[in-house]
């Protein structure tokens, strides 16, 4: 019998027992569990791997805890710019976007590019125009605002530093 399997990630970095409270740890685990089990349920019902990864990533994009979609970090200009990609191992078809703003779920835009475009990768305004033509949902800037992300940005916005996902802001970086 063919095995079905799914794995997800929510970013990497300097994540230690000291950087997370018990409450935060519970919240992260709950969000991960929800996404992986939703994808697995879809696979168990005979759904495709492409649908399962799109669903799992959509759930993670909707969760402000992670740096994607709603939880996207702030750029130097105080905006949110998102990148995403999707690839099917059966057909080798792929869709990708770079530097898009205001797209609620960039992963859904990659699916539209994969299925409805002759291109693989679109960027910026052009990608947003393609999204409008294919009824991909947009969200206002307020949707992407998160107080914790804003605080992270405030600490470095007057410098040339940039921070990775979940990177502990160690003092020596700001000396």
């Amino acid at each position: 019998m063919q095995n079905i399997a799914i794995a997800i990630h929510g970013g990497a970095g300097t994540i230690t027992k000291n950087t997370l409270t018990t409450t935060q740890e519970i919240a992260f685990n709950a969000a991960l569990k929800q996404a992986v089990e939703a994808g697995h349920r879809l696979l168990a019902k005979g759904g495709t791997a492409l649908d399962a990864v799109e669903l799992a990533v959509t759930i993670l994009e909707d969760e402000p805890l992670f740096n994607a979609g709603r939880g996207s970090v702030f750029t130097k200009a105080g905006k949110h710019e998102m990148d995403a990609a999707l690839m099917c191992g059966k057909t080798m078809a792929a869709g990708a976007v770079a530097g898009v703003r205001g797209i609620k779920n960039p992963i859904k835009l990659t699916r539209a590019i994969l299925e409805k475009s002759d291109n693989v990768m679109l960027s910026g305004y052009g990608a947003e125009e393609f999204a409008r033509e294919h009824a991909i949902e947009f969200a206002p800037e307020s949707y992407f605002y998160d107080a914790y992300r804003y605080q992270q940005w405030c600490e470095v916005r007057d410098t040339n530093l940039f921070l990775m996902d979940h990177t502990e802001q160690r003092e020596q970086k700001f000396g």
Partner: protein
Amino acid sequence: TVGAVAVDSAGNVAAATSTGGMTNKNFNRIGDTPIIGAGTYANNATCAVSCTGHGEFFIRSVVAYDISCLIEYKGYTLQEACEEVVLNKLIKIGGEGGLIAVNPAGDIALTFNSEGMYRACKRNDEQTILGIYK
């Protein structure tokens, strides 16, 4: 960054990755996520991979495709290929991060060289596995 890889009941694999980039990034910087072969790759002949970490290093090392190549050309297992790239090649150039990968047989690899990676997986009717720290 978030990502997912899966294999379905027909043995087809797929990969997806999405990110908000890096805090305070400038000049329309993009990372490895949307670059097919660097941060995201899927091929039924080998595996599906989604990466997370310091994107510039993942781009230079063409990480996701590199793992596929080690399986295809060198006969590595999924785990061996992921460890070779993340724990050996990337570390040598200072690239911090990790990846998730799955192959058509349903094997899963969750490999990272940073202090932690938010991750989860589930295979068949087995229990859901969750992890944060090393």
